[in-house]
């Protein structure tokens, strides 16, 4: 019988982002996020990816490496990824200010190692770039499934399902490949909360520190502001939906 479950070496790219409930404020000069009072977490899209990696490892055996391009403050996030089930972590010691720089750092790491599968999230919920995974794929000329909501691996071939506008498309690709994953890769209920044993063992799992090798960004954040606040809501009586229709037509010009 052919071996349909070869051992898999999986890289999960993790971004370190403000918790979804965080109130976002910027520094007085508007140059950056004000991290005061903000709790940072594993990017939710990457959590689905990490959980998918655990499922694949359970089925195939292998190793899960988690990686982040970030400064020392991101280490607790990597440790959490180890507590959830990653085997080892790598931190590339650079401030991730520009997507192409992050993508090049990750690409250099991927080239120097051999992975069967690279799982990214569709998007980081901080700067909402949706850039890094497609950039890595383009530089390495690897197949790429964006907005990936389903992935099955059979021997050296992957079947990946992506959300496209108005529906889904399924792709067949030879490994290694890159996915930009989201909910659907695994379900919400599959997400794992690290237990005590996981947290303890994460402390002794390897976390390798790598100095950056890239220094040529293409974009620069100049300024951040908050969106203008909404005007007060206009309440309409539940018995008077005609009034709502009138307002939507005449005032909001929305219908």
């Amino acid at each position, binding site marked *: 019988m052919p071996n349909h479950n070869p051992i898999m070496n999986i890289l999960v790219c993790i971004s370190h982002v403000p918790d*979804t409930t965080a109130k976002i404020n910027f520094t007085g000069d508007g140059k950056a996020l004000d991290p005061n009072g903000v709790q940072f977490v594993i990017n939710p899209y990457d959590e689905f990816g990490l959980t998918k990696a655990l499922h694949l490892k359970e089925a195939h055996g292998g190793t899960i490496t988690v990686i982040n391009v970030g400064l020392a403050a991101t280490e607790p996030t990597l440790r959490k990824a180890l507590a959830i089930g990653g085997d080892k972590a790598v931190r590339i010691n650079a401030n991730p200010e520009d997507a192409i720089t992050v993508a090049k750092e990750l690409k250099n790491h991927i080239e120097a190692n051999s992975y069967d599968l690279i799982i990214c999230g569709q998007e980081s919920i901080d700067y909402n770039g949706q850039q890094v995974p497609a950039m890595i794929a383009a530089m390495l000329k690897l197949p790429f499934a964006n907005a990936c909501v389903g992935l099955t691996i059979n021997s050296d071939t992957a079947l990946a399902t992506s959300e496209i506008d108005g529906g889904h498309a399924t792709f067949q690709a030879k490994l290694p490949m890159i996915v930009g994953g989201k909910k659907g890769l695994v379900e919400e209920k599959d997400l794992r909360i690290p237990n005590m044993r996981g947290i303890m063992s994460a402390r002794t799992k390897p976390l390798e520190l790598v100095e950056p090798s890239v220094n040529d960004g293409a974009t620069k954040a100049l300024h951040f502001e908050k969106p203008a606040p909404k005007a007060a809501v206009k309440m309409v009586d539940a018995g008077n939906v005609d009034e709502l229709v009138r307002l939507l037509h005449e005032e909001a010009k929305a219908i």
Partner: protein
Amino acid sequence: MSVLVFVEDWNGSFKKASFEATSYAKRWANMMNTQVVAVTSNSTTSSELHAYGADHVLQITLTKTGMGIAEQLGQLCNDAQGVVIAGTALGKTIGPALAALNNGSLSTNTISLPLSINPTEVKRGAFSSKGIETIELNGSLPIISFVPNSIGIAEITGEGETNSKDITGNDLMEITEVNVASGKVALPEAEAVVSAGRGLKGPENWGMIEELADVLGAATACSKPVSDIGWRPHSEHVGQTGIQVNPNLYIAIGISGAIQHLAGVSASKTIVVVNTDSEAPFFKAADYGIVGDAFEVIPKLVDALRAFKAAS
């Protein structure tokens, strides 16, 4: 020299985002005193693009995936001063792949026209619409991927020419199956979205939501728990960790307005909230609100809208 715009084709015709992209490119090209080259696989109705600003239409046989298309576009960028791509599902792969292949400088999630050229500056959404970032694109090839519906369309009376060209690209993978719901409005580009939450009590109650969407020509959406429990498909989940939308009209029914939900919908131009609880946080983010039971209000609203449509 030119601004190149990638114009996506959907089965032989263009969606609004295609015209918006062309129109974006025209306005940018005017700032730079240059012309617009629209690249499309459409061979039948491509002359429509002139009315939105395409000076030249370049018709090529596109490959099937974003990676392949990025490689093809990359070969056309030699004398491009900028590239415009609509942030559709496909555009979201093409933009960064092209930037990586051609040493470009990319802004995704862009919500403004260029504020300046040399260097190019634009505004983009960040922190799930909780912030707006002004970004500078340096380097020789600025690439702008914008949020569909955020810029608008400007029609002009223009004309131009169409040429075709042979260019190849590698898909790197094979498409085995495509399922697109026909006749349904796709969420990211919808001009109106009718969205419902846990307040609806069960999947059997979505009939009135679909009716409302139908009268408005709207797409249907839902809150995250509703898709997590399987009342509705995941593809309808909107919010910070779902699809982000910015329609002209967003109607939220039986949704409390949690911060993660608001983060994905607050860019909508007009927001209507229907909720039994007058303290629901969603009212603070709404333009119009009705405190009431969806099961009573929505059927009445459907009737009122039908009457309005019939009269207008």
